[in-house]
């Protein structure tokens, strides 16, 4: 080795780097050993002089979802260091909330996680209900509808995550299968709310409308179709060598690190930590259902994929149980201070019209205080920390974004990996720009 190449030897590999990267073979841990000819090639290649280069990945990189920039310091293909920069989709969610009435915030929370807006709707409604002290007065039928809508949204969320990241790996067929399955979910949610993507369906104290008459039958039929698409996707990829090579042992994060980073949801459960808000601190009517918390071992891309696949099956089981159990009754709380009067009263009586006017113009008067409410969103614990000063508008409305904390761990996951691994790792953590940047 010449002096020049010695100078260009990479600096000492950091300890967290060493876990996944073996400098002797130039391969990730968990990868199968190279064939003899490839081994010889790799040894020769290791002797070639290289230079560290700074590369910008994103924000306009197609696999960066248009919202994240990763500044990579690379040596050849190996990532030595990374700076993950978010904020390109910051819309001032909190500032806008402070100028809106409590009910006007629903369209904003729709646009936080635009892949599963129903879950955000419900999470926010529950936070305000907690602060109002009316959590136990929400009609049971409304709680069941929220669960059904929320779990449908979770299926849509996981389908998007899985199939979009597979499309980024070149498996475009799965993306089409996934989108067909999502189309069924969207049709059901459209039946519920009238909107396909941003539903604004939940209300403080209940939901906007009751289920349609044929909703239960339609849902059962569509769930079967979705199951078929998921089976198709699994059959296509799970024994595919390219898929396994890029998922297994890539993007590993340990359980202790995941907890320390505040990672929740599927990414944490992929580290074999069975934390699910629905099970550990049951809210709504989740304690009425028999379901398993999906966990997997390894903390790598494949584990995250498997957790999401299993969670979709559990979600469908919850929906089917809910459709059987759902009781008849009202879908919104009977409290004129919180819920809008029926349209019949608004148009035909002066009291109804005044009540409507006051609620729309002044907003719901939430007593002064603060509350932190938590639900299981598509990506993990979706929390809302709401502070009221007694007026009709929130003093503060903070969203605890699961994606933000997961993305903060991205640096640790990609350092020591190859450039090409950034795409599947980033895809598997399901970073949603609207929620991460708010």
């Amino acid at each position, binding site marked *: 080795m010449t002096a020049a190449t010695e100078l260009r030897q990479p600096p000492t590999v950091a300890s967290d780097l060493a876990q996944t990267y073996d400098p002797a073979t130039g391969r990730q841990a968990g990868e199968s050993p190279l064939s003899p000819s490839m081994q010889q090639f790799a040894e020769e290649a290791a002797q070639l002089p290289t230079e560290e280069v700074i590369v910008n990945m994103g924000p306009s990189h197609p696999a960066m979802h248009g919202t994240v920039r990763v500044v990579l310091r690379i040596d050849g293909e190996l990532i030595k260091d990374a700076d993950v*920069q*978010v*904020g390109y989709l*910051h819309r*001032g969610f*909190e*500032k*806008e909330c*402070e*100028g809106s009435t409590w009910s006007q915030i629903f369209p904003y929370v729709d646009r936080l996680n635009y892949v599963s807006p129903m879950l955000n709707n419900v999470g926010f409604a529950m936070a305000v209900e*907690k*602060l109002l*002290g009316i959590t136990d007065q929400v009609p049971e039928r409304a709680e069941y509808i929220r669960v059904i809508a929320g779990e449908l949204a979770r299926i849509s969320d996981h389908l998007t995550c899985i199939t979009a990241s597979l499309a980024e790996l070149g498996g475009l067929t799965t993306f089409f299968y996934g989108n067909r399955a999502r189309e069924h979910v969207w049709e059901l949610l459209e039946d519920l709310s009238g909107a396909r993507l941003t539903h604004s369906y939940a209300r403080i104290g209940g939901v906007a409308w009751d289920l349609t008459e044929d909703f239960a039958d339609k849902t059962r039929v569509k769930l079967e179709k979705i199951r078929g698409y998921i089976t198709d996707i699994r059959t296509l990829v799970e024994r595919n060598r390219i898929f396994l090579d890029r998922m297994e042992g890539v993007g590993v994060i340990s359980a202790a*690190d995941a*907890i*320390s*980073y*505040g990672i*929740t949801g599927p990414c944490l459960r992929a580290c074999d*930590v069975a*934390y699910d808000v629905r099970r*550990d*601190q049951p809210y709504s009517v989740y304690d009425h259902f028999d379901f398993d918390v999906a966990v997997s071992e390894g903390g790598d891309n494949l584990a995250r994929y498997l957790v999401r696949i299993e969670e979709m099956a559990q979600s469908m089981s919850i929906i089917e149980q809910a459709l059987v159990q759902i009781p008849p009754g009202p879908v919104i709380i009977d409290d004129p201070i919180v819920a809008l009067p029926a349209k019949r009263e608004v148009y035909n009586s002066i009291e109804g019209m005044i009540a409507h006017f006051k609620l729309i113009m002044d907003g719901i008067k939430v007593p002064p*205080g*603060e*509350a*932190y409410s*938590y639900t299981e969103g598509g990506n993990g*614990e979706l*929390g809302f*920390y709401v*502070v009221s000063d007694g007026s009709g508008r929130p*003093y*503060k409305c*903070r969203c*605890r974004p699961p994606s*933000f*904390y997961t*993305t*903060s*761990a991205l640096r640790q996951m990609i350092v020591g990996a190859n450039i090409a691994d950034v795409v599947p790792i980033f895809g598997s953590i399901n970073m949603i720009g609207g929620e991460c*940047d*708010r």
Partner: protein
Amino acid sequence: MAQSVLRILQERVPHAIVETGSYVGDDMALVERDHLIEVLTLLKEDPSLDFSMLTDLTVVDWLGQDPRFEVVYQLYSIHHKHRVRIKASVGEAEDQCWVPTATGLWMAAAWAEREAWDLYGVRFRGHPDLRRILMYEEFVGHPLRKDYPQNARQPLIRRPDAPATDDQTTRLLANSHDRRVE
């Protein structure tokens, strides 16, 4: 279970606790800033508390009150399945507007504190990399402060016919003292 968290805190670090309370099922403890890290370390390390996860960190701006800001930590224990909210009050003056960093305890604090600094201008002493995170480097002021006007605009690229800055932004720029971290 949850009440015992506050009781343990009262017993173990009585000198650090200013106030405790429970509202709509949430437990809260207001802590002296000088003892904040001591309390947070106890919460994380003590086996009976075991708050392994910093769920969220944010700031509340009580404009017009003294002290003006409250730094709010939401903690969760995966093992015991309990939660607690820890708060610390900080003043508005530049030499007062800081808390010690929690990055040594939870890695989640790294980005959460950057966001709190970015949006509220509360400094986190000892943070290894306290840069703006959601706003851009050139941004002046801290947008979630209650005295930052909701309709102020700070475009990076200005249209040729647009005025240099609007009135509100001008006032804001005059008042802002903390463009960058020292």
